[in-house]
């Protein structure tokens, strides 16, 4: 048995292990006390996993476990990650963004033209059928988009649809989408989150019926759905051949909702499940030793940074001094934290946006190198030779926050941790009661800078620095269609934010996947699990 294990372990491509982790939006209320158990679980698994039978490959069924259940499978009525994963596999969007090149391709639309600043005309593909046999045409697009964009219909993902003013049918296979204002992000949304429903069926059953019996055009069709428990999908054998999504090969996919991470781990170890994601770094690393498992990691779009409240009435007026803000940025050794805690797949950031986003750039931005001596000097110049006390609010990746606190302590800044729920931290920020906050932002997967930087710097509720010049530039970028102009105004805005040290850019979060070794799988920064691309080895 020992021999076999060694052989299996050495057959893994090594580069899979050199990348690293992420944590989920919710680490789970039962997560922490089990750290100790995890090691024992793994050890026990190692001893007994030898004679493992891989049920998944045998019955052509990929079993995935996920910790959160979506409130609805209708893509417009949930805002959890697994909802996005189900949506991408069961539904199609008008456009498609290639995850490697970030280039747009036609999916349900064949081609598109920008008629004017607010109008996009799309030529639709013919011969596409929904899972229930309904034909896809202009009516599907018109009905779906006009329905979800109407605030009366209470779509949960407002940010994905509120830019749509109306959608018009030109002929059976041609539509025009008109936005409320010039909206350069339109193609981004149309290629990621704006799924198309069958008009007749959706009109008949509404979002509730769509949740009970989901119908899309995608590579997988839902055959059984038990809310809060499990969803079963089957390969769509009639999936349209011209789709940029590959034809699916795995016959069946079952996603079960298992809230507890240790239970999920026990399931993959015992062969009950084939695939889990968002596995904490330390535990994923231990699972690497298992002969029946593979551990994969990849970068994500989620960025991590620290916000500093410099509004009038801030509980921490010392942050108003630019030298203090710079001192904080210089105090943190980002490289060391990434290496030891975050994981090697993470990327250092110098601006507050996701590097893959259109309009996001690190170029020309002031870089704050780790330099505790300079940090202390800056603090002394600002009148704080002995440092000061400050509150630091955080809501996830507590181990990272604690590392930051230690680095701040080293230059004399005594940060007191206030660990909260996301909603509570957000309330605090919006009520002008926060000082330092350890923030993260996933941009809802939108690969355009308008989905990240403006949230924190365009005078919205979460903007606690409020620089008028920055807002002006961001607003201009958000409403300009010309890519060159956008690029340059965003660059200028990001430059000012970095130069004035309005926030401390930290790193992007990686994510860990653990899968049965029979599964062939690729990780993408958008954290989408593309079942249609997966296969058995």
């Amino acid at each position, binding site marked *: 048995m020992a021999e076999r294990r060694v052989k299996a372990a050495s057959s893994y491509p090594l580069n899979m292990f050199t990348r690293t982790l992420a944590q989920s*939006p919710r680490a789970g209320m039962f997560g922490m006390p089990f750290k100790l158990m995890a090691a024992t679980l793994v050890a026990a698994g190692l001893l*007994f996993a030898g004679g493992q039978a891989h049920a998944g490959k045998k019955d052509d069924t990929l079993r995935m476990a996920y910790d959160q259940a979506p409130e609805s499978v209708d893509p417009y009525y949930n805002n959890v990650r697994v909802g996005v994963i189900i949506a991408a596999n069961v539904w199609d969007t008008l456009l498609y963004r290639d995850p490697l090149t970030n280039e747009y391709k036609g999916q349900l639309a064949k081609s598109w033209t920008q008629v004017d600043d607010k109008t996009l005309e799309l030529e639709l593909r013919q011969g596409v059928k929904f899972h229930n046999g309904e034909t896809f045409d202009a009516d599907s697009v018109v009905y779906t988009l006009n329905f979800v964009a109407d605030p009366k219909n209470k779509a*949960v993902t407002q940010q994905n649809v509120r830019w749509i003013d109306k959608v018009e049918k030109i002929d059976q296979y041609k539509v025009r989408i008109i936005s409320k204002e010039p909206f350069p992000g339109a193609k981004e949304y149309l290629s990621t989150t704006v799924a198309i429903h069958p008009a007749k069926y959706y009109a008949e059953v509404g979002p509730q019926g769509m949740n009970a019996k989901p119908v899309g055009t995608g590579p997988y069709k839902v055959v059984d759905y038990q809310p809060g428990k499990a969803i079963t999908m089957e390969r769509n054998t009639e999936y349209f051949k011209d789709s940029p999504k590959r034809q699916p090969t795995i016959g069946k996919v079952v996603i079960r909702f*298992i809230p507890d991470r240790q239970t999920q781990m026990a399931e993959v170890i015992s062969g009950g499940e084939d695939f889990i994601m968002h596995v904490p770094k330390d535990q994923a690393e231990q699972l690497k030793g298992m002969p029946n498992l593979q551990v994969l990691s990849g970068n994500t779009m989620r960025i991590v940074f620290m916000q500093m409240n410099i509004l009038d009435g801030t509980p921490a007026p010392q942050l108003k001094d630019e030298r203090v803000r710079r001192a904080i940025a210089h105090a943190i050794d980002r490289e060391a934290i990434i290496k030891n805690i975050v994981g090697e797949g993470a990327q250092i950031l110098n601006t507050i946006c996701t590097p893959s986003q259109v309009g996001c750039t690190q170029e020309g931005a002031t870089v704050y190198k780790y330099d505790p001596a300079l940090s202390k000097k800056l603090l002394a110049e600002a009148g704080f030779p002995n440092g000061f006390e400050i509150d630091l609010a955080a809501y996830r990746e507590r181990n990272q926050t604690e590392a930051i606190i230690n680095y701040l302590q080293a230059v004399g800044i005594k940060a007191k941790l206030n660990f909260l729920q996301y*909603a509570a931290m957000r309330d605090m920020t919006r009520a002008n009661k926060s000082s330092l906050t350890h923030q993260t932002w996933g941009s*809802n997967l939108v690969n355009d800078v308008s989905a990240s930087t403006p949230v924190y710097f365009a005078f919205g509720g979460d903007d606690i620095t409020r620089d008028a010049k920055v807002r002006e530039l961001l607003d201009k970028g958000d409403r300009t269609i010309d890519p060159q102009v956008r690029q340059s105004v965003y660059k200028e805005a990001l430059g000012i934010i970095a130069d004035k040290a309005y926030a401390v850019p930290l790193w992007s979060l990686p994510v860990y996947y653990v899968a049965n070794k029979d599964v062939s799988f690729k990780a993408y920064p958008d954290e989408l699990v593309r079942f249609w691309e997966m296969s058995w080895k």
Partner: protein
Amino acid sequence: MLAFMTKRLGLAILVALTVSILAFLLLHLSGDPALALAGEGARQADIEMIRKAYGLDRPIVVQYADWLWRIMQGDFGMSVYFKTPAGPLILAKLGTTLMLGVAALGVALAVSIPLGVLAALYKGSIIDRFCLAIAVLGQALPNFFFALLLIMFFSISLRILPVSGSGTWQHFVMPAIALGYYIAPAFMRLIRAGMIEVLSADYIRTARAKGLPARTVIFKHALRNAIVPVVALAAVQLGYLLGGSVVIETIFALDGLGYLAYQSITFKDYPVMQLIVLLLSVLYVLLTLASDIANAWLDPRIRVS
């Protein structure tokens, strides 16, 4: 007896009502439901819209009164998370939780009765201590930890039980053990005390003097009498088991009321949370009431006070 029951019933209703008020207040104090509903990507305007749409902008007293009035009319509200009526949603999960509760009770009795009897027979000896230790261990071990030990042993080492889910009876074995072991000590002590008392009674001496075999004396004569208070305790403990299954159901991904409670807490699903709290408190109160009445019926001394 009738006066006693009426008084108890009135008290029970008051308790349930108080619990529901407390639950309602605490849930609203714990954070803004509109924020949670809107999710991470929402802007202020979206949140305002959601707040209005769900009536969360009204004063809390009005919200509570409105809720109670609807409940009394049989309208249990809509789950704001699952977007389905809360009543049927909860009802659909109740079966799993009841099954788990009864199975756990079975486990508790299966562990505590032999241990209690053994401890009473060898009162004060090493065996007594040992039985007590086994029972107390159940209470001392946090049940989530014990649950993981069970998973390691039965699912990973032996591979004879499924780790999680609720499809077959096998899925209930580990959750029932994890939950039942925790309440075993209470029964065990009760049985031990009862047995010690009964064993020193005159009629046991008579039975022994008659030359009956020890087994008949212990199980037929003594245990039958010692077990009476256990019946009453079982009713109360079942109430505890229904409420206490939140952690166990979450670990084993059992699709019951406890798991639903966990989900509704995570997603601030107020209507569902309130309904679960109300249902559990009513069940608990009813079970306590049943045990009071059973006790009073079995033991006239209680009725007097």
